[in-house]
């Protein structure tokens, strides 16, 4: 690691630069080494598999070139599943992040019970998926027993005189995906909240004081001080939201199992089905690679968008 540190002093500037670079490079070496073992190698293997036809177990794997990708391009169900994930992501980007930012701003102020809120808002991410699945199943249950609604939401709608709105929330293709998106936002906003809160903490309060002295109102302080200072953190939150929401899967399984025709399919459920349901390992790998490319593009898009708004 610091082998180059024990150096004679008569070296030329050029060697010094190389030495400097090496020293700097050594900072990222632990990360790079871990990565090459646990990530780069499997990545190339997966890429190789995506060009093959293999059931996951048999010794014979046949080379099919880009056939898997060609099939995937025409796979309507796959692209629908990508759209579903994008829909959930859009809701998460707007609704979830707006909520998280509003809550973080509120908790950044000098208000009472700040600590209490801060703890409470992080409860949903901590809760086990089992509990989340159970509770929302119960809330959104559409069954009727002895003339009474079992689900809390429907029960409450009947009680408040709105029986017309009673719905089979999870088994109706029109509402299922939105319900899933809402629960996903509820489960995930805690992450955005603490990251944004941490970001707000690093803003120098002298900047706020200065704005006040200049006679700036609350809105213009927010617009000209808080927002520009927060942009880098916001862009990280946006990227993580995209990644988290596009790859949503456990929640879907907990809420609708494999159900509802193709209305609740997302890329990860398709990949898992190809791998374990229809035993097409190569095809699953080509889905993974394609999905990765889509995600990289989306993140780049949000990044350029972020830097544009900055200007």
């Amino acid at each position, binding site marked *: 690691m610091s082998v180059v540190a024990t150096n004679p002093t008569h070296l030329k500037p050029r060697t010094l630069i190389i030495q400097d670079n090496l020293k700097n490079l050594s900072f990222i070496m632990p990360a790079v080494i871990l990565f090459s073992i646990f990530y780069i190698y499997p990545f190339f293997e997966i890429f190789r598999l995506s060009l093959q036809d293999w059931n996951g177990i048999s010794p014979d794997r046949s080379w099919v070139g880009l056939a898997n990708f060609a099939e995937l391009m025409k796979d309507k169900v796959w692209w629908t599943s990508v759209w579903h994930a994008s829909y959930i992501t859009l809701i998460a980007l707007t609704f979830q992040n707006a909520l998280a930012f509003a809550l973080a701003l509120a908790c950044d102020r000098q208000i009472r019970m700040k600590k209490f809120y801060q703890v409470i808002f992080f409860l949903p991410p901590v809760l086990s998926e089992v509990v989340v699945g159970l509770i929302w199943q119960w809330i959104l249950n559409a069954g009727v027993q002895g003339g009474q609604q079992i689900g809390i939401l429907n029960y409450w709608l009947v009680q408040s005189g709105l029986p017309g709105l009673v719905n089979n929330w999870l*088994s109706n293709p029109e509402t299922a995906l939105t319900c899933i998106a809402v629960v996903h936002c509820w489960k995930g906003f805690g992450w955005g909240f603490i990251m944004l809160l941490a970001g707000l903490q690093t803003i120098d309060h002298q900047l706020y004081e200065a704005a006040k002295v200049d006679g700036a109102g609350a809105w213009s302080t927010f617009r000209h001080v808080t927002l520009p200072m927060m942009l880098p953190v916001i862009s990280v939150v946006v990227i993580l939201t995209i990644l988290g929401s596009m790859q949503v899967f456990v929640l879907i399984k907990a809420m609708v199992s494999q159900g509802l*025709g193709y209305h609740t399919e997302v890329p990860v459920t398709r990949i898992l089905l190809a791998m374990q349901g229809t*035993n097409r390992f190569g095809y699953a790998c080509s889905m993974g690679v394609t999905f990765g490319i889509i995600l990289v593009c989306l993140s780049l898009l949000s990044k350029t968008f972020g830097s544009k708004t900055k200007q």
Partner: protein
Amino acid sequence: MDRKLGIMLFAAVMVFSLSCSGCGKKQEDLNTISVWHWMIDRNKALEELAAKYEQQTGIKVKIDLFAPSEAYTQKVVASAQAKVLPDIYGILDKKEIFSAFIKGGFIADLTPDFKANNSEWENWFFPKALDVNRFVEGNVYGVKPGIYGVPLDVTNIQMLYNVKLLKKAGVKAPPQTFSEFLEAIQALKRVGVSGLVSGWGELWMLDCFSSNYAFNIMGEEKIMATYRGEVPYTDPDWIKVLDVFKQLVDKGALLEGVVTKANKYAEQDFALERAAFAFNGSWCVNVYNGMNPSLEYGVMLPPAINSNLPMKIWGGAGSSLVVNNMSPRKDKAIAFLKWLSEKDQQTYLAKETKNLPSNREALAEIPEVLSSFASVMDQATHPTFWALNEDPIVSEVFLKGIQSILIGEKTPEQIAQEVQKVKQEQLSKKKK
């Protein structure tokens, strides 16, 4: 300062890599058999049996449980590639994958052991229990005929009815035919009780139910002909099968939301008397007993539509274990499995876990509901018994199509056409 920290980090890396190299290969122990399984409910009983086995023979059996089953399957697949499978494990997949394991040399052929002494070991079992692990002469998978696994228990999937709710609706006997069933549903509706619940959010439960009716409506021959591509899915009989689901929806026979229910939630609904009928497997006895011990229910076959052909249900070995062909402890592993399928051990397993034993002689001491499950074992069938199975891509479209019918989005005719289209694509792909 800089250097000091650098040295510290360097030392940390060294310690790390040293401890890595420290945990090298352990010595192969020829007297310890390792077993990997996924059966949470049987883990305790298996561990106790293993301890007993060690006392009797001095051979240690290490039982390792990996659950849920998806994670278990991943582990087995990865271990096969790394060639580090344990001595005894189980395959939780289609017969095609089972055959791939055999062809890869990962599973030992147990036929000589089963056939020894006039098939002594083979005769202990229900024939159906062994069928799951049997490859017959001339099978489509190209596997040498024989028996490749040992069944631990048997199971089958049927309909259950709630005695109290049927009485409340004035239905005297559990319905035998589909039209009687629909009448019972109307009677139940009048007293505000929902009809049928099942975990149809899980595709395999739909597969099972539709397969039952396909057998009843057209019989095994025609189903196999369809799989071979000789009969189209647009055949009236297949539309009739899909129409079963449409009728269930039209007559309001289903509890709201079955299409997205995982079976565990469906089990909860039936146990809490939210529906009068359930479609579930024999493992439910244990489940219902835990949720609602006072639940009064009976077992019945799914009500038949066609009186000319028998109703078939899915059943067979609930879980089977295989022996690793590459293991140096192969004979010891086989001996342990044989011991495990003896009457005493089977009786113990059945009693502890409320499952049907695979050993016929162990059937004596089981609860009444379970024995009524067992009584129709002759009518059981399973995809693993059939000469060939449908292409999984086609079945996926078929089952997802049923879900579309259940949410009233498509008609049976539309689905039949869609499935047939995919079927033809797959057939032409195979010809190439």
